[in-house]
């Protein structure tokens, strides 16, 4: 009990001291990072944070923005929407950040949208791809921006790829019903695939943290589709692919950027991932010099290759820095106006311009897994 009291007291004194220092905003610009640092989607958040920190370090080494250094204040949302809301509130009211980067998944970002709208603090999500993040009931969320393309684009890219490159006529869609991301990708995939003359044989569903998928996979095997689209996250997808291959399902699997995590290969097994394709934001083996420069800087700092989340974290930080520079001030509403005017910004994932919905217009990359490695397949530009 005495220990608990001590901890409470400790917290109290800490928060007052941090408030004290934030009152003096003269030498640094505080930017919040509301990310999945623990929990089921921790791989995404930690990757994004590495990218953000690399970008901040480069900016600071080059003299900062308008003479001020960037300070990243991180907050963990434990991969839960309610924690993401709380983290955003803490960053704004306690740490007094001028802008937030986060979160890395759509569900958690959607939870924080109302907070930043109310407090009028601009937020850039590096990787949340659900359409609703920036546009709610036809109305643009004025303070929310993103650095990645959106689900309708990602889903339809994969549907076109299935029809044109894989010559698929039939597909089964297997959705994580606990995720807005998964549902968003699935819908646009289905729409485009049907428009291309394909047939959706059935739509199956699972939930986060499921571990046995054999029952539904047996159903899918019965239908014998040309392709199976699983727009989910790596933990479940890894198990699905492994169990499917063991049951003798040979059809190609396809997914989105949620597959992009090193753990996927451990869980699914290298050979089981052969003949699977995903849409992603970039490929580490893309010969583009901008990408290669970033990849080598990242490898020097962290000793590993950056995944899609790391590169988008990096892009989001640079987009924000660019906007602050153009705004000429660290005032949140001025940053917001500058962000809205982002045009032909040179990001690692491609040159981007924000459209009227605050969504970037840029290319998607399709990757194929070969013996556990992601191999650059093709780049698809928006129509």
């Amino acid at each position, binding site marked *: 009990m005495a220990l608990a009291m001590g901890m409470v007291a400790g917290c109290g004194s800490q928060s007052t001291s941090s408030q004290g220092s934030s009152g003096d905003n003269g030498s640094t610009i505080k930017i919040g990072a509301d990310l999945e640092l623990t929990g089921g989607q921790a791989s995404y958040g930690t990757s994004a944070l590495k990218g953000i920190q690399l970008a901040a370090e480069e900016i600071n080494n080059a003299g900062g923005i308008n003479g001020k250094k960037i300070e990243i204040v991180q907050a963990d949302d434990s991969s839960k929407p309610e924690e993401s809301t709380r983290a955003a509130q803490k960053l704004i009211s306690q740490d007094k950040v001028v802008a937030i980067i986060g979160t890395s998944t759509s569900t958690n970002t959607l939870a924080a949208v109302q907070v930043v709208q109310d407090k009028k603090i601009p937020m850039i999500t590096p990787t949340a791809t659900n359409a609703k993040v920036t546009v709610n009931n036809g109305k643009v969320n004025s303070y929310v921006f993103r650095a990645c393309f959106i689900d309708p684009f990602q889903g339809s890219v994969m549907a076109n790829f299935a029809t044109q490159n894989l010559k698929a006529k039939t597909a089964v869609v297997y959705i994580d019903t606990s995720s807005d991301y998964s549902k968003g990708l699935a819908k646009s995939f289905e729409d485009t695939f049907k428009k291309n003359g394909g047939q959706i044989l059935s739509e199956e569903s699972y939930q986060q943290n499921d571990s*046995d998928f054999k029952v539904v996979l047996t159903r899918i095997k019965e239908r014998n589709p040309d392709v199976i689209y699983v727009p989910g996250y790596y933990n479940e997808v890894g198990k699905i692919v492994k169990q499917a291959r063991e049951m003798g399902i040979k059809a190609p699997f396809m997914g989105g950027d949620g597959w992009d995590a090193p*753990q996927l290969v451990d869980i699914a097994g290298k050979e089981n991932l052969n003949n699977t394709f995903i849409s992603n934001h970039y490929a580490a083996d893309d010969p583009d010099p901008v990408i290669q420069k970033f990849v080598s800087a990242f490898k020097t700092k962290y000793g590993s290759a950056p995944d899609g989340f790391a590169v988008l974290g990096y892009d989001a930080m640079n987009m924000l820095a660019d906007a602050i520079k153009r705004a000429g001030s660290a005032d949140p509403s001025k940053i917001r106006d500058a962000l809205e005017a982002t045009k032909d910004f040179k990001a690692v994932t491609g040159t981007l311009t924000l459209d009227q919905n605050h969504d970037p217009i840029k290319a998607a990359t399709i990757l194929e897994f070969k013996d556990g490695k992601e191999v650059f397949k093709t780049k698809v530009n928006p129509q």
Partner: protein
Amino acid sequence: MDYIIQQFINGISVGSIYALIALGYTMVYGIIKLINFAHGDVFMIGAFVSFYAVTLLHLGFIPSLLISMAACALVGVIIERTAYKPLRNASRIAVLITAIGVSFLLENGGIFAVGAQPKGFPELIHKTQYTIFGNVTIDSIQIMILAVTVILMILLQYIVHYTKIGKAMRAVSYDMEAARLMGINVDSTISATFAIGSALAAAAGVIFGMTYNSIDPLMGIIPGLKAFVAAVLGGIGIIPGALVGGLVLGVLETAVSSVGYSLWRDGVAFAILILILIFKPSGLFGKNVREKV
């Protein structure tokens, strides 16, 4: 027809994991009337111990299984000695709440110790697919789980009914005070119960890791709850009931998913729990015994 049989086999293989966890649950309840909510988390610890035994010490399946069972037996005894023994004479609800507390402690302690990200479990035994007839397949691990569960159940029945420690357990479950008067060491009997129950949970954890290739500190929650439903379904405290309850639950869940209602699967599991508690609270194998006043 092939489809139905294949789904039935899927159901049995899911159900035998529930049954394996339920054996430990039901045993602890049978002896000291405690619903040990931390049981699912001991199952998680078992999976992690064998994961590290395999990846760090490069041991094979049998040695890593034995290490993990021994480690969890110890964990079980420590939990009992530190969390439940001081409450031996407290009300049942106080012990139940403590069990929930221990469960949270193990889950969050696990996140603190190994991180929250799922880890890929190495393939210890190569899976071989057998085609029984037509398109119906079964793999070596599915057969192994069912075999291990049945063997452990028989072994437990033997221990409880034919050994000295088993006799002591039954005496303690019948009347703790009278057992003490008869010279039975109640504390060591209860510790032995926890050691056996936790070792069973560890075995289930290792097998779960091998089957699904992904382990994380929160992996014990859902299987733990399902095993609880299975134990209640079979009649909590009755060892063969745990096996039957687990298999019935697995097959029912599979039936629900296989006709296209996979979202209703967990709902059905808990609906069964509610129906059992309303219509036959003592479970499928239970007799109606009035509580002593």
